């Protein structure tokens, strides 16, 4: 086993561990910290995929912005200890069965699938990505920025304190 494979297994184990902690921990704050661990490990996976820009975006947006937003949400709703209510709802065995079944189907399909790999072309760099975003992908890029603007205004209006 080569070094990169060992690093991948380590990162994957950290991501799965963080994800499992996220869905099982009782304290919602700990759950959010476990999610940060999982998202950070995914940034490491991007580095292994030679997508450095994605790794930076992952750390900045997912770990930096979204996780902070969720932590603020948890603190603003102060339901941290869950007031002794159970973490899971009544249908959790069904949810577990559905998730495990989907995982089994996906795993069997993925292990059996044969991929025709492209002959070793050079991975795209950050400069190519930037040119693509303002060239062939300019219209989706603008649509994404409009979406972000609409989401920001909408979030502000929905979350605003209603004044009588």
């Amino acid at each position, binding site marked *: 086993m080569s070094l990169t*494979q060992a690093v991948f297994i380590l990162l*994957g184990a950290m*991501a*799965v561990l963080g994800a*499992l902690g*996220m*869905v099982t921990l009782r304290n*919602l704050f700990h*759950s*959010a910290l476990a*999610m940060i661990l*999982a*998202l950070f490990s*995914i940034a490491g*996976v*991007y580095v292994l*995929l030679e*997508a450095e*820009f*994605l790794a930076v975006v*992952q750390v900045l*947006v*997912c770990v930096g912005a*979204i996780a902070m*937003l*969720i932590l603020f*949400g948890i603190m603003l*709703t102060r*339901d941290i200890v869950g007031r002794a*209510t159970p*973490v899971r*709802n009544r249908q*959790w065995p069904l949810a*577990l069965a559905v*998730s*495990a079944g989907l*995982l089994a189907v*996906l*795993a069997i399909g*993925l*292990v059996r699938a044969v*991929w*025709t*790999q*492209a002959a070793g072309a*050079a*991975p*795209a760099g950050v400069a*190519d990505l930037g040119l693509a*975003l303002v060239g062939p992908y300019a219209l*989706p890029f603008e649509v994404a920025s409009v*979406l*972000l603007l609409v*989401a*920001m205004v909408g*979030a*502000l209006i*929905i*979350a605003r304190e*209603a004044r009588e």
Partner: protein
Amino acid sequence: MIPLTWYLVLSAVLFCIGLYGVLARRNAIAILMGAELMLNSANINLAAFERYLAAGSLAGQVFVIFNVAVAAAEAAVGLALILAIYRSRDTVSVEEVDLLKG
């Protein structure tokens, strides 16, 4: 070299854990975190497919960037909705939010 299947299996495992979180948790914020994890596992797939099956085509990485933008918008609007529900109903448990139930 890491086989492509490893990335796909890791992504499938993370997706299913996120799905379980969405289906089984009571707290609305925990459900939002599960959805976040599912989006991120899809992103691993996109980046891995680009790297292994279409290296240099950039389509996968561009998709991941748009996906991250959508995830950020979803988290902002979702948390705003949860805050608004918490203000009016004093709870973030999805089982107690049943205004539309006849």
